[in-house]
C-alpha cells in the first residue's frame, strides 16, 4: 500500500514536470502557431545552466534562478533570431528549422560540457524524507517539485484568466488583428510569451537536475513524452496539458513500477523483466493510441 502511494506521488511528480513543458509547448503552438521541437533543448539548457552554477558556487539558491533565466534568455534569443521568421511558414518548415536548432544546441552542449553527465546534489534544506501518514515516507525534494509545479500551474491559470497579459494571450490566439488594433506590439508580446514558455521548460530542467543525470539528449527524451501529453490533452489547451501530463506521469510511473512483478507472476526468467520493461516504455504511447481512437482531437481540445 505504501509503495502504491509512493509510486502515485512519483507519477504526480513526473506529471508536473511534463506539465511545465507541455504548457509552454501548447501555449506557443496555440497562440503563435509554431511547433517548436527545440522546446526540449530549453529544458536541457535550464538543467545544464543550473548544474554548472551549482557546481561552481555550491549554492542551489543561486543556481536555480540562473538556470531559469538562462533558459528564458536563450528562448527569447531563439524567438528573435529564428522562430519569428517561422510564424507564417507551414509546420514542415518549423519542424525542420527547429530540428536544426536541436542539432546545434546538443552539439554545442557537448562542446562545452562534454558527454559525461553532470550530477547535482539535492540542496541541503530539501534533503531527506518526511513521514506523510501511516508508514509512508516521501523525499522532501520530490514534494517540493510537486508543490512548485502545482503553484506554477495555479499561477499560469491566474495569469491567463485574470491579467491583462492573459487577456492579450487569449485574444491573440483567436484574433491577431484585434490585438494589433489595441495598439499592442504583437512582436514584443510573442517574444515575451516565448520567453515565458522557455522559462517553464527551464524550470522543469532545473528541478530535474538533482534527480536525473544532466546530459545531452535529455531534452529530446522528455520532448517526445511531452508530445504524447499534448496529443492526449488536446493541442493548444493548457488545461488539457495539465490533465494529459498527470495521466501520462502517473500511468508511465505505475507501469514501470508494477509491470515487472506482474509479468514475473505470469512467466519466468529474465524474459519477464525485458518484456515488462518494453511494455512499460510503450505504455503511454498505447494510451495515446487509445485516446485517439475515442477522441481524435484529444481529451480537451482547444476550440477553433
Amino acid at each position, binding site marked *: 500500500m505504501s509503495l502504491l502511494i509512493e509510486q502515485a506521488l512519483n507519477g504526480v511528480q513526473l506529471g508536473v514536470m511534463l506539465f511545465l513543458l507541455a504548457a509552454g509547448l501548447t501555449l506557443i503552438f496555440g497562440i503563435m502557431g509554431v511547433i517548436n521541437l527545440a522546446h526540449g533543448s530549453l529544458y536541457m539548457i535550464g538543467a545544464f545552466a543550473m548544474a554548472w552554477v551549482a557546481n561552481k558556487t555550491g549554492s542551489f539558491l543561486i543556481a536555480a534562478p540562473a538556470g531559469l533565466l538562462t533558459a528564458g534568455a536563450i528562448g527569447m534569443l531563439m524567438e528573435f533570431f529564428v522562430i519569428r521568421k517561422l510564424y507564417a511558414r507551414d509546420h514542415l518548415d518549423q519542424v525542420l528549422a527547429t530540428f536544426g536548432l536541436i542539432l546545434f544546441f546538443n552539439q554545442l552542449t557537448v562542446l562545452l560540457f562534454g558527454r559525461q553527465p553532470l550530477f547535482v546534489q539535492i540542496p541541503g534544506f530539501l534533503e531527506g524524507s518526511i513521514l506523510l501518514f501511516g508508514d509512508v515516507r516521501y523525499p522532501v525534494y520530490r514534494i517540493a517539485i510537486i508543490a512548485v509545479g502545482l503553484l506554477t500551474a495555479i499561477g499560469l491559470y491566474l495569469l491567463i484568466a485574470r491579467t491583462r497579459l492573459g487577456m492579450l494571450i487569449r485574444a491573440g490566439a483567436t484574433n491577431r488583428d484585434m490585438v494589433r488594433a489595441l495598439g499592442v506590439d504583437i512582436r514584443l508580446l510573442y517574444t515575451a510569451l516565448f520567453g515565458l514558455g522557455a522559462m517553464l521548460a527551464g524550470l522543469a530542467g532545473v528541478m530535474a537536475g538533482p534527480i536525473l543525470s544532466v546530459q545531452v539528449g535529455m531534452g529530446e527524451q522528455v520532448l*517526445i513524452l511531452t508530445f504524447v501529453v499534448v496529443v492526449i490533452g488536446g493541442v493548444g489547451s493548457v488545461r488539457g496539458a495539465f490533465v494529459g501530463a498527470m495521466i501520462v506521469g502517473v500511468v508511465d510511473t505505475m507501469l514501470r513500477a508494477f509491470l515487472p512483478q506482474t509479468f514475473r507472476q505470469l512467466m519466468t526468467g529474465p524474459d519477464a523483466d525485458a518484456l515488462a520493461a518494453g511494455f512499460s516504455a510503450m505504455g503511454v504511447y498505447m494510451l495515446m493510441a487509445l485516446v485517439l481512437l475515442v477522441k481524435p482531437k484529444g481529451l480537451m481540445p482547444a476550440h477553433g
Partner: protein
Amino acid sequence: MADLKTTRGPASASRTYAVIAIVLAMLAALPFIADAIGQPALTSLATRITILAIGAASLNLALGYCGLVSFGHAAWYGVGAYVVGIMYRHYVTGDPLLGLSIGSDQLLVTLPLAILISGLFALVLGALSLRTSGVQFIMITLAFAQMLFFFFVALKAYGGDDGLIVRRRNALPFIDTRDGPTYYWVCLFFAVAWFALMSRIVTSRFGRVLEGIRQSERRMAAIGVSTYPYKLACFVISGMGAGLAGALMANHARFVSPDMMHWTQSGEFMIMVILGGAGTLFGAAAGAAVLIGLETQLAAWTEHWQVILGPLLVLMIIFTRGGLSGLVRLLRGGRNE
C-alpha cells in the same frame, strides 16, 4: 511536379530518358572511377547514399506528394533492418520463432519480407495516426516511432540496446554480395526499380488523388473522394519503401540497432526530401546525396559537425523555399517566393 509535367511532350520525354540514361551510366561506373582516383571508400559512401535515397524517395511520396508530414519514417526503416537481422540470427542459431523456422540469409527472401512487415507496421500505426492531421499528425508519428524504438531497445532477445550483428551479408544466387562494388550495384538496381515504381505511381490515378489531397482535402471530398483510404495506402507504400531501404542498409552495415529508428534519423529523411525539393521525384536522391556528402565532409573536418549543420539547416529553411532549387534561385538573385 514540374519536372513530370514537362515529360508530357514526346520530344522532352526522350530528352528526359536520355538524361536518366547518362546519369545511370555514370552511377554504374562509380566504383571504377572510385578505384581509378584512389578513393575506394567512395563506393561504400555511394552505397549508403543509394540506400538512403530509396528511403527518402518513399518518404517523399507521403510528404511531398500527399502532404503527410510524417516524423516517424525511420521506424519503418528500422523495422525493415530488424527483419534482416532477426532472420539472420535465426538462420545462424536454427532456433524457431513461435514454432516457425524463419531463419534465412537469402536476400530474395529477406527483402520481400522486410518490405511486407514494414508495410504491416505502417498499416497499423498509420491507420491510427491518420485519424489526426496537421501538427498532431507530426507529433503522433514521432511518438509511435519512439514507441517502436523503445520496443527494440527492450527486446533483449535480439540484442536490445546493443543491436544485432549480421556477420555476413545476405546472399543472392550467382552474385557475390560480399564484394563492395557488387553490393553497390545490387543497391543501385533496387533504387532504380523503386524510383521507376514511384515515377509510375505519381502520374497514375492514385498519384493524382494524392496530389489533390495535398492541395485541398476539402476539394477532394467535394468531388466525392474519401481521402482516408488513399492517405493510408500512401503511408503504407511509403513505409514499405523505407523497409526496403532498412533491409539493404542492414546488409550494407552488417549491423542493426535501435539507433536506426532514432527520431533523428526520421529528421534526416525529412531534410533529404526538403533539400531535394518536396514533390520532385529525383529530388529525394539529390537530397540524400547532398546531406550525406555534407555530413561526411563536415565530420572529416570536425567532430562537432552538427554545430555547423544545425545552423545551416536553419538558414536554409529561413532563406530558401523549396530546398536546393530554392537555393539556386536565391544565388541567381531571382525572386524568392
